[in-house]
């Protein structure tokens, strides 16, 4: 008994250390957003001035807007493509399913840097040979982002759909609802946590992406991660920390809101009660 207690204590101690490891960097970023000095390594005094300067900066906010625009459109297209594919795949015959599966896994396994440079070559050639094809810019970034994220949504939604079983759909068909009615009234409400989770994850992945964006942006477009990367390489100011802190706040509010929405939906859509967990990619 005593030995078990010691083991438990050891594990708990380790867990505390790891949580500190996970949250220390975030704490540091937030703390230095309020630093009176230009420097981000010494604490010299408290100010909120960097928040104003971050909002006035000529490049920061436009870059955030570009990132939001790309992430939003990416999330919609990826969710539609991925959900449609997941519905068909889940109950498809093996001979048809396997080639598609291989394709989905390939988009996830091929290193991002390789997809980024391959897309760059492809987009440059496509524009050179087809004038209607967009030149490098936010549109090519969007096109590149959707590949990976459609796969993510496909996997998340399919896992949930397979886990649901087909009993209720059979009942719905037996009771005379057509495929569209069944989808709207039976499948979608139960699938909803997974669809929301997929949409949120693909938004985050796109918003946070540096590699695909940087290689497919061309000269004129800048996303928020590209601004941070450039700033880190050529000298940061606490203004970057300030904007990051504001965005952290927005993210936390969004997570909480999603959690509340999914929790409220639990009663009437017979969700599995792990909505928030699913939304965060836990299941």
């Amino acid at each position: 008994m005593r030995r078990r207690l010691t083991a438990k204590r050891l594990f708990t101690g380790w867990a505390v250390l790891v949580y500190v490891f996970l949250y220390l960097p975030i704490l540091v970023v937030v703390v230095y957003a309020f630093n009176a000095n230009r420097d981000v390594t010494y604490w010299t005094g408290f100010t909120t001035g960097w928040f104003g300067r971050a909002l006035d900066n000529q490049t920061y906010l436009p870059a955030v807007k570009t990132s939001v625009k790309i992430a939003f459109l990416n999330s919609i297209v990826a969710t539609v493509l991925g959900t449609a594919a997941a519905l068909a795949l889940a109950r498809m015959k093996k001979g048809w399913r396997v080639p598609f599966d291989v394709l989905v896994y390939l988009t996830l396994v091929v290193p991002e840097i390789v997809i980024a440079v391959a897309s760059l070559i492809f987009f440059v050639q496509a524009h050179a040979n087809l004038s209607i094809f967009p030149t490098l810019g936010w549109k090519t970034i969007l096109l590149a982002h959707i590949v990976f994220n459609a796969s993510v949504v496909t996997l998340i939604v399919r896992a949930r759909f397979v886990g649901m079983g087909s009993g209720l759909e059979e009942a719905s068909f037996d009771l005379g609802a057509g495929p569209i009615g069944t989808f709207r009234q039976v499948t979608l409400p139960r699938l909803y946590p997974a669809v929301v989770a997929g949409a949120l994850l693909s938004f985050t992945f796109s918003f946070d992406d540096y590699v695909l964006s940087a290689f497919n942006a061309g000269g004129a477009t800048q996303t928020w991660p590209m601004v941070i990367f450039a700033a880190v390489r050529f000298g940061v100011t606490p203004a970057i920390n300030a904007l990051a802190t504001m965005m952290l706040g927005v993210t936390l509010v969004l997570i909480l809101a999603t959690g509340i929405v999914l929790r409220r939906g639990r009663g009437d859509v017979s969700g599995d009660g792990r909505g928030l967990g699913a939304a965060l990619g836990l299941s």
Partner: protein
Amino acid sequence: MAATEGPRFAASRRRSFTPRYPAWLTLPSMLYYAFFFLGPMAILAVFSVAKPGDTFGSVVYTVDWSQFASLWDPVYIKIFWHTLAMAAGGTLLTILVGYPIAYWISRYLTSYKTLALLLIVVPFWTSFLIRTYAWLIILDPQGYLARLVNSTGLTHNWNILFSGKAVGIGLVYNYLPLLILPVYASLERMDWTLVESATDLGATPLKAFRDVTLRLTLPGLVTGALLVFIPMTGEYVIPALLGGGNFVFVGTVIGDQFLGAVDWPFGAAMSLALIGVVAAFVAVYLVFATKEEQFGA
């Protein structure tokens, strides 16, 4: 009673109609992948045997294997080796840090399990670049951590920034949840009474862990390790920021061919080589996974 009813029930179920969503629903994403994934991959292959042209991004199309020949050079072999060693070391460290956490959550927590997992994932909803940049602040040789380490007297100018150690910390930090989640899932599926029986039959806790827990969670551990290892081999941002240019990964060299040195065919050839290396590891994993299935683990 149940024995006679069972088969009849199954038969009636089999007759029942199973609704299926039409296969054409996969068509939109199939077309999308064909254009924007297979298209780029195909043209990458074409470029890898082309020759660099005179203007930005242009090439002369031929079949020229010299790009691959020049990859077989001690400089590049060393970079590949270095990258794989870093990814392997990073994966091992991630396991050492992450496995005990998954174990702790699964074994010792009851009502706070979801919260504990949530707290693992929440940091990853903040910008990856910001979190990596935070390590630049923490590891700064003039920063508070450096002063703390120097005050112990073991060293006087502690500086691991822009070194392999900093890159290693960045790797572990950014990939930790990808390991914890699958390991946790397999720990949750495990039957803890097996561990109890092992200790009841005289096994020491350590032996019970090695022969029962570790063995039963091996599939989750291998999946997690692969989820961490594969993206590490293609890592671009972490070595660029925390390695400060002193620490080159294969991904860095590929990126430089397209942004700086502008030798697209060579970059394309190197990309294919990287895919080959990753594919080899995935193949090993698939062999392992099917073996596990055969033995029913």
